[in-house]
């Protein structure tokens, strides 16, 4: 859906999506890194389980909700990637204790 421009010279950052390593660039948000990865990163909604991807990328729509380092319901578009970050695609509601 998206590709990176060749002029991007930022250093790579390795993050994990459901256990699989992907390469992001320093300064990417979690949502941007997920969309750039080319993987199926659709979450499912808490209400009907419908698949969704980020819609606004500016902290407004909450369609980028994702589990980051064990904490659910994070807005992926507001969190920058960090080396070794563990990301889980959130299916449905946030679970108690996560």
């Amino acid at each position, binding site marked *: 859906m998206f590709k990176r*421009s060749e002029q991007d010279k930022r250093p790579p950052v390795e993050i994990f999506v459901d256990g699989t390593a992907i390469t992001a660039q320093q*300064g990417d948000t979690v949502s*941007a890194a997920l969309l750039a990865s080319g993987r199926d990163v659709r979450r499912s909604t808490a209400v009907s389980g419908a*698949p969704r991807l980020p819609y606004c990328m500016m902290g*407004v*729509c*909450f369609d980028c909700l994702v589990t980051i380092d064990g904490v659910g319901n994070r807005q992926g578009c507001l969190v920058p990637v960090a080396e070794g970050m563990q990301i889980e695609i959130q299916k449905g509601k946030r679970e108690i204790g996560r």
Partner: protein
Amino acid sequence: MTFAPKREDYDVVVIGAGPAGLAAAATSAEAGLSTLLLDENIGPGGQVYRAIASTPVIERNQLGADYWVGADLVQALRASNAEIIQRATVWSLDRNLEIAVSVGGASAFVKARRVIVATGALERPFPIPGWTLPGVMTAGAAQTMLKSSALVPDGRTVIAGQGPLLWLLAAQILRLGGRINRILDTTERGNYFAALPRAFAFLTSPYFAKGLAMMREVRAKVQVVPGVTELAASGDGQLASVSYVAGGKREAIPTDLLLLHQGVVPNVNLAMAAGVEHRWDDLQLCWSPVLDQNGNSSVAGIAIAGDGAGIGGAGAAVVRGRIAARAAAEALAPAAAAKLPPMAALRGDLVKAERGRIFLDTLFRPARQFRIPSGDTIVCRCEEIAAKDILDAVAIGATGPNQLKAYRRAGMGPCQGRLCGLTVTELMAQARGKTPQEIGYYRLRAPVKPITLAELAAVPKSEADVKAVVRG
């Protein structure tokens, strides 16, 4: 790195580091006022100057000269004594000018003598069939990814809607080597005639030549379909095709990415939750705060600057920020205020910056069918409530958006009405034969962004606070 505010009290707290917030904070600090700037994003710039201090897009002309203006604003702010905190989510502002802000998972509280709300704008909801499908995003979302991560659309891409941002985004995508298969222009033909009497101011504004050049640049490379009157996205769990009607003819095109845009509207949540009075704006078709000429709202001590004060664009936002900050300085430190640029000069700048705006508002006034959906089309994305559900609620007695919450959960999901509020107001107004002003809006309250119960529970509390709620 994230830091909590250094002090508990500030002369001026500015919320939002877009053009208005950057200018306001720099002006306030220049007058010697203790100034705190709180911003939710990773870096300063807001949406228009998104990632201005970190963008990987090196070739400056690809983003355009208007973008790089933001670098000067950031530089001026950083040269000042203002304290700036990024990744700081303000979740409460009240009439006592007390602000609750979440930084790094913990909340801090600060008190201000003056608050300048510069929370800007967000894209107007574009509730067409299928707009919740993965693969449908806002144009602003694509622009955010382009500016902050040099990402451009790669698959079969359609841009649909209207307004200056749409053309700017298209030009930027093409310059960075991205793909656009078609642009579907939803501008109503009648708007051109309606806007004509306003054209003179626009022709003499800086928008005109720039806008024309950009549209020419895009049209040379992309097929543009004018007069689109119907639009729908479809696919099974993922966008597969976009269908539209133009000139009475229906067509469907296979699509991987659909970018929607029909203008921007004030981001009102924080100001409304603080009790600031808003009125329905019949030209811009949105809620705008009631303000005096210095940006002061109906709540003493709270001013609003930038697009949150009514859409005026980045140039106007900068001036509004300076005016609000100068007014704060006049009230708190009159001697220091005298060193700032005079108010009369700022007002002159504002008139210049707002020139041509009414023309744009009239020309790009979104069509009714793209604002007020029907049938199964989702209105509230969070709670997945369709237009017909809302009309059913009206039929059995729901009178306005706030009452609707008792019938349906519209506006009660995590986005707190940001993506459905305007649609619900207009839909209910139409169904009940009332004006949007009469129908009203959701009653917004803190926290205006979700925070965890654990974070709330960890807030420092006095013995008296505990006694007030503990039994026995």
